[in-house]
C-alpha cells in the first residue's frame, strides 16, 4: 500500500513538503507584499485578481512581510462561508441532541441561535450586522426552498385538492388581510390615549400591514410540518396554501403599497387589482411552465453529457424565478410550475446519478437556506431597530389568530359542500393552527419605504412578534396537539405495485362511467390530458425508447431496480465475495466498459440456463480485474455513464439469476426482461436513491426485517438485525432519515429474487456503510408521474 511507504520515508519527505508549502505561501504573499513597492513592479509581479491596496509609498523600504494579513479582499466570501458553516454546524448540533429536537422544532432552535449570535455581534460592537436583506432573501435564500418544494410536489394529491387549496390561498388570504387590516385601523382609531402615534396610521397602511402579515409562510410550514408527519391531505392543504398565496400577497402588497403612498384608492384601482391578480398568478405559472418545458426538452439531449444534467434543472428553474420576478409576476408560482412540469420528463431522460444529484443538491441548498433564514431572523431581531407598541403588537397577534380561525372555519363550511372527502373539525383545527408566518412577511416588511411608512419599525416589530409567536408557540405545541387529537398520521408505506395498478384501473373505470353518463367530469378531462400527453408531449420531451413506456412499466422498473440494488447491498452474490468490494467501487466510480459485457448483454434476453454459467464466469473475471483499476476518475470519464449504469444493472440482474438457480423449487422462468434493445435507457433509469421509500410494500410488512426476501427463509433472520440497526440509526432526525441508499427492500419480491442473498448480509455490512449515507428524508418524495 502506498501509504505505508510514505510513513517510512517520512522525515526527509516531510521536510521537503514543508519547505514546498512555505515557498508556495510566500509566493502567494509576495504579490501582496509587493503592494508596498511602486506600482509598475507590482503590476508585473501581480496576479490579476489580487486586489492590492494602492499605496503611494515611494520606495520606502519596509521589512519584507513573511506572513501578511489581508482580510479585506476575502472578507465577503469569507463571511458568507462562515455563516453557512455556522448554519450547518448548528444543524449538526441539533441532531446530536435528540431529545431537544423532539420537543422543539428546529426552526425555533435556529431562531434562538440567531438571537444569540445577534447578541454576540451587538456586544462585539460590530457596526454592520448581516441583515436579512430583502434582496438576499428573495433572490438567494428563498428560491432553493421553493424549488425543492415544487420539484418534489406530490402532483396527484395536489391536483385533487386544488380547489380547496385555491380557496384557502386566495379567499383565505384576502379575508385575513382585510380583516386584520380593517380591525387594526379601527383599533388604532379608537385609541383613547393622548395623540398616540397610532393615529398616524391610515387605512391603507393598515391594509398593507394586514396583507403582509396574513400570508402563511411556506418556509415555516415546511420546517414545522415536516417534523410532525401528519397525513398527506392536511400536509398538502396547508403547504399548498402557503405556496399559492404568494400571488395574492404580491398583488395585495403592491396594490396597497402603491396607493398608500398616494393616500387613496378608487374602485377602478381595486378592479385593476383583481385583473392584476389573475395576471400575476397565471403569468407566473405560464412562465414557469415554459421554462419547465424548455428544461425537459434540453434534458432529452443530455445523454452524452450526463455531468451537467443537474445544472440544467437548477438553472432553468432559477431563470424561471428571476424572469417572473422581473415582470413582477409571482416568482414562487413560476418556480413551482417549472419544477412540477419538468419533473416527469426530466426524470425519464436523465441518468439515475443525476437524479440523485438533483435530489441531494436541492435538499442541501434548501436546508442551508432555511437554516440561514431562521438564524438571520434571530439576528435581525436583536440588531434591528424596534418600536414597541403594546397595543399594536398584541392586537396584531390576537387578530392574526382570530382571523385565521374564522377564515378556516368559514371557508371549510363552504368547501365541504363541494368536497367528497369532507374536512372534519380536527382537520380544520390543524389547518388553522398550521398557519405559520415566517420570513417572507419579515422581508416584505423590510422592503417598505421609510418615507412612506414612518411606522415601519413598528410594523417590523409586530411582524417579528407574530413570527416568533407562531413559530415558537404554535410550532412547539403542534406536535403534542397532533398526538393528542389523534390526527391521522402519514402512512409510512408507500405505493405498492398493487396500488398503482388499482389506481389506474379506477381511473379508467371512472372515466368510463363518466362517459356512460355523458358527463364530462374530472376524470374525462384528466383522461384526455393523459392521452394528449402520451401521444404528443412525451414524444417530444422524452428521449428514445422511454417515450413509449407506459407509466406502469416505468413504475415497475423502478421497483425492480431498487430491489436489485437492495439485494446487492444486502448481500446478493455470495458466489462473488471477492468481487463485492469492487462492486462498490464500480457503482461509485466509472470503470471503462469492459468488452466482455457486450456478449453478456446480447445473451440477456434469451438467458438459457447454460449461458448463465458462462455469464457468471465472465462477471467474476471482470470484477476481479476492476479491483485493480485505479480508483480515480475525472470529469471526462464520467461521460461513460450510460455504460456504467447498464453494467451495474446487468451485474445485479446476474446476481439475481444466480440466486434463482440456487433455489430448488418450481422455477417460474419469468425474468424481468427489459423491453427494447440492450442499450435501452430503461435499465439505466433506475431511480435508486431517489425514492426508496416510495415503493416499498404494504404497511403490514413494514416492521418486518428489512432484508426480508423470503419470509420463510431461515437465513433472513440474520440479515434482519444487521440492516435494521443501520436503518434505525438513520431514522433519527429529519436529515438523517436516510432513505438515500439504504433502502428497505419490499417484503415480498417475486420468486426469482429469493434469498440466497440473505446469507451474504453479514459480509455486506461494510458495503452498506459505503453505499448508504444519511440523506434527506425521503418521505418528501412523491415520485408520482406527472399525470398518473
Amino acid at each position: 500500500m502506498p501509504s505505508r511507504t510514505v510513513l517510512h520515508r517520512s522525515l526527509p519527505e516531510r521536510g521537503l513538503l514543508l519547505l514546498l508549502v512555505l515557498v508556495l505561501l510566500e509566493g502567494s504573499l509576495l504579490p501582496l507584499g509587493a503592494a508596498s513597492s511602486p506600482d509598475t513592479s507590482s503590476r508585473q509581479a501581480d496576479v490579476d485578481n489580487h486586489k492590492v491596496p494602492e499605496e503611494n509609498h515611494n520606495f520606502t523600504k519596509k521589512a519584507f512581510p513573511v506572513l501578511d494579513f489581508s482580510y479585506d479582499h476575502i472578507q465577503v466570501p469569507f463571511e458568507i462561508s462562515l455563516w453557512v458553516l455556522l448554519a450547518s454546524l448548528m444543524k449538526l448540533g441539533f441532531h446530536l441532541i435528540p431529545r431537544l429536537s423532539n420537543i422543539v422544532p428546529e426552526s425555533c432552535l435556529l431562531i434562538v441561535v440567531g438571537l444569540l449570535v445577534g447578541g454576540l455581534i451587538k456586544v462585539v460592537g460590530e457596526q454592520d450586522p448581516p441583515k436579512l436583506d430583502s434582496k438576499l432573501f428573495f433572490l438567494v435564500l428563498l428560491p432553493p426552498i421553493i424549488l425543492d418544494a415544487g420539484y418534489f410536489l406530490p402532483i396527484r394529491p395536489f391536483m385533487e385538492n386544488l380547489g380547496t387549496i385555491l380557496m384557502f390561498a386566495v379567499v383565505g388570504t384576502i379575508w385575513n388581510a382585510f380583516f386584520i387590516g380593517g380591525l387594526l385601523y379601527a383599533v388604532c382609531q379608537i385609541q383613547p390615549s393622548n395623540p398616540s402615534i397610532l393615529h398616524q396610521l391610515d387605512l391603507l397602511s393598515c391594509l398593507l400591514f394586514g396583507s403582509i402579515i396574513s400570508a402563511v409562510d411556506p418556509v415555516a410550514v415546511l420546517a414545522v410540518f415536516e417534523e410532525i408527519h401528519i397525513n398527506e391531505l392536511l400536509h398538502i392543504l396547508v403547504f399548498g396554501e402557503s405556496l399559492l398565496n404568494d400571488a395574492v400577497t404580491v398583488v395585495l402588497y403592491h396594490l396597497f403599497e402603491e396607493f398608500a403612498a398616494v393616500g387613496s384608492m378608487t374602485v377602478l384601482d381595486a378592479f385593476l387589482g383583481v385583473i392584476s391578480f389573475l395576471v400575476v398568478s397565471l403569468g407566473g405559472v405560464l412562465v414557469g411552465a415554459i421554462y419547465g418545458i424548455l428544461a425537459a426538452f434540453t434534458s432529452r439531449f443530455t445523454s452524452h453529457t450526463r455531468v451537467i444534467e443537474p445544472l440544467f434543472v437548477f438553472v432553468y428553474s432559477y431563470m424561471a424565478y428571476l424572469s417572473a420576478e422581473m415582470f413582477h409576476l409571482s416568482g414562487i408560482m413560476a418556480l413551482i410550475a417549472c419544477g412540477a412540469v419538468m419533473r416527469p420528463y426530466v426524470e425519464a431522460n436523465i441518468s439515475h446519478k443525476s437524479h440523485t444529484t438533483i435530489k441531494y443538491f436541492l435538499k442541501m441548498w434548501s436546508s442551508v437556506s432555511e437554516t440561514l433564514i431562521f438564524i438571520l431572523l434571530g439576528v435581525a431581531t436583536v440588531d434591528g431597530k424596534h418600536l414597541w407598541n403594546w397595543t399594536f403588537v398584541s392586537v396584531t397577534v390576537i387578530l392574526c389568530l382570530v382571523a385565521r380561525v374564522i377564515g378556516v372555519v368559514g371557508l371549510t363550511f363552504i368547501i365541504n359542500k363541494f368536497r367528497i372527502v369532507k374536512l372534519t373539525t380536527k382537520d380544520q383545527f390543524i389547518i388553522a393552527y398550521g398557519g405559520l408566518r415566517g420570513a417572507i412577511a419579515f422581508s416584505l416588511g423590510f422592503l417598505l419605504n421609510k418615507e412612506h411608512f414612518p411606522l415601519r419599525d413598528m410594523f417590523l416589530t409586530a411582524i417579528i412578534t407574530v413570527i416568533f409567536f407562531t413559530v415558537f408557540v404554535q410550532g412547539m405545541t403542534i406536535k403534542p396537539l397532533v398526538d393528542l387529537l389523534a390526527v391521522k398520521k402519514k402512512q409510512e408505506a408507500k405505493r405498492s405495485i398493487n396500488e398503482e395498478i388499482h389506481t389506474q384501473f379506477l381511473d379508467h373505470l371512472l372515466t368510463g362511467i363518466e362517459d356512460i353518463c355523458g358527463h364530462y367530469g374530472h376524470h374525462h378531462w384528466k383522461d384526455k390530458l393523459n392521452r394528449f400527453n402520451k401521444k404528443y408531449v412525451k414524444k417530444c420531451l422524452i428521449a428514445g425508447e422511454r417515450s413509449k413506456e407506459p407509466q406502469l412499466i416505468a413504475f415497475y422498473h423502478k421497483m425492480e431496480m431498487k430491489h436489485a440494488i437492495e439485494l446487492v447491498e444486502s448481500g446478493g452474490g455470495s458466489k462473488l465475495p471477492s468481487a463485492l468490494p469492487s462492486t462498490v467501487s464500480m457503482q461509485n466510480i466509472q470503470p471503462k466498459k469492459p468488452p466482455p459485457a457486450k456478449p453478456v448483454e446480447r445473451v440477456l434476453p434469451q438467458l438459457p440456463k447454460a449461458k448463465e454459467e458462462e455469464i457468471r464466469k465472465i462477471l467474476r473475471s471482470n470484477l476481479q480485474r476492476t479491483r485493480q483499476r485505479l480508483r480515480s476518475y475525472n470529469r471526462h470519464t464520467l461521460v461513460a455513464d450510460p455504460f456504467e449504469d447498464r453494467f451495474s444493472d446487468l451485474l445485479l440482474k446476474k446476481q439475481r439469476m444466480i440466486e434463482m438457480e440456487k433455489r430448488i423449487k418450481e422455477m417460474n422462468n419469468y425474468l424481468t426482461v427489459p423491453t427494447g434493445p440492450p442499450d435501452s435507457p430503461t435499465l439505466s433509469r433506475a431511480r435508486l436513491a431517489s425514492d426508496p421509500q416510495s415503493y416499498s410494500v404494504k404497511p403490514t410488512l413494514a416492521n418486518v426485517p428489512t432484508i426480508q426476501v423470503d419470509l420463510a427463509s431461515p437465513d433472513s433472520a440474520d440479515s434482519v438485525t444487521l440492516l435494521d440497526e443501520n436503518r434505525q440509526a438513520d431514522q433519527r432526525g429529519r436529515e438523517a432519515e436516510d432513505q438515500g441508499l439504504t433502502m428497505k427492500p419490499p417484503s415480498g419480491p417475486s420468486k426469482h429474487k429469493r434469498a440466497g442473498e440473505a446469507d451474504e448480509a453479514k459480509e455486506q455490512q461494510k458495503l452498506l456503510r459505503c453505499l448508504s449515507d444519511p440523506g434527506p428524508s425521503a418521505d418528501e418524495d412523491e415520485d408520482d408521474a406527472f399525470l398518473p
Partner: protein
Amino acid sequence: MGSSFSRNKIPNQAELMQETGFSAAHLLRLHERFEILDKDSKGHLSPEDFETIRELAINPIGGRIIGAFFSAGQETVDFSTFVRILAHFHPMDPNRTKNGAQQEAANSRTKKLRFVFQLYDMDRDGKISREELLQVLRAMLGLTVTEEQLQSITERAIQEADLDRDDAISFDEFKKVRGLMAVVPWRPESRLGGSQWKKLTSIRR
C-alpha cells in the same frame, strides 16, 4: 320539478330514489341519458347501445364496464338496473348517514369496492386469480409491453397483496390495498359542469 325532457315517465321513481340516493333531478338526467343511449326506444339497453359511446371504445376496460351492467347473463339492462349500478358511484346520501353514520359509510364503501372487485373477478369466484390480473394488465398496458414483463408484474402484484398465500387476491386482501379506501366515494354526476345540468337541476329537492 325541472322541465321534463324524457319521453316516458320514470318507472318506480320514488323507490329508486330511496334505494339509490339519487335526487329527482339526477334521476331525470340519468333517464334522459338512458333514452339517448337507447336508440331504438326499446325501453332497455343492449351491449350495442353501450358500444356506441365512442370514449368507451377507447377505454382499456370499456368492455368490462359494459359487462358490469349485464350481470348474470342478462341480455338487456332496464332503467332500474342502470340506475342501481350507477348508484355505486354515488356518495353516501347525507340523509342516510345521519343514523349510524360510520356503519353506513363503511358498508357503502365496501359495496363500492365489491363492485370494483367484481370488475376484476370476471368469473365471479370471489378471488382475483393470476390469470384475471394478467388480463387486466394486458388490457391496460396493451401492446407496449412484452409478455414476460406482464408476467413479472402480475407475479409481483400477487406477491404483495396475497396475504394468505393462495396465489390469488381475495376481497379482503383487495380491500387492504392502501389508497383504495381513500378513493371512494365517487361522484361523477355531481361535479356539475354542463349547462344542461344547470337547467335540469334548477329546482333541486
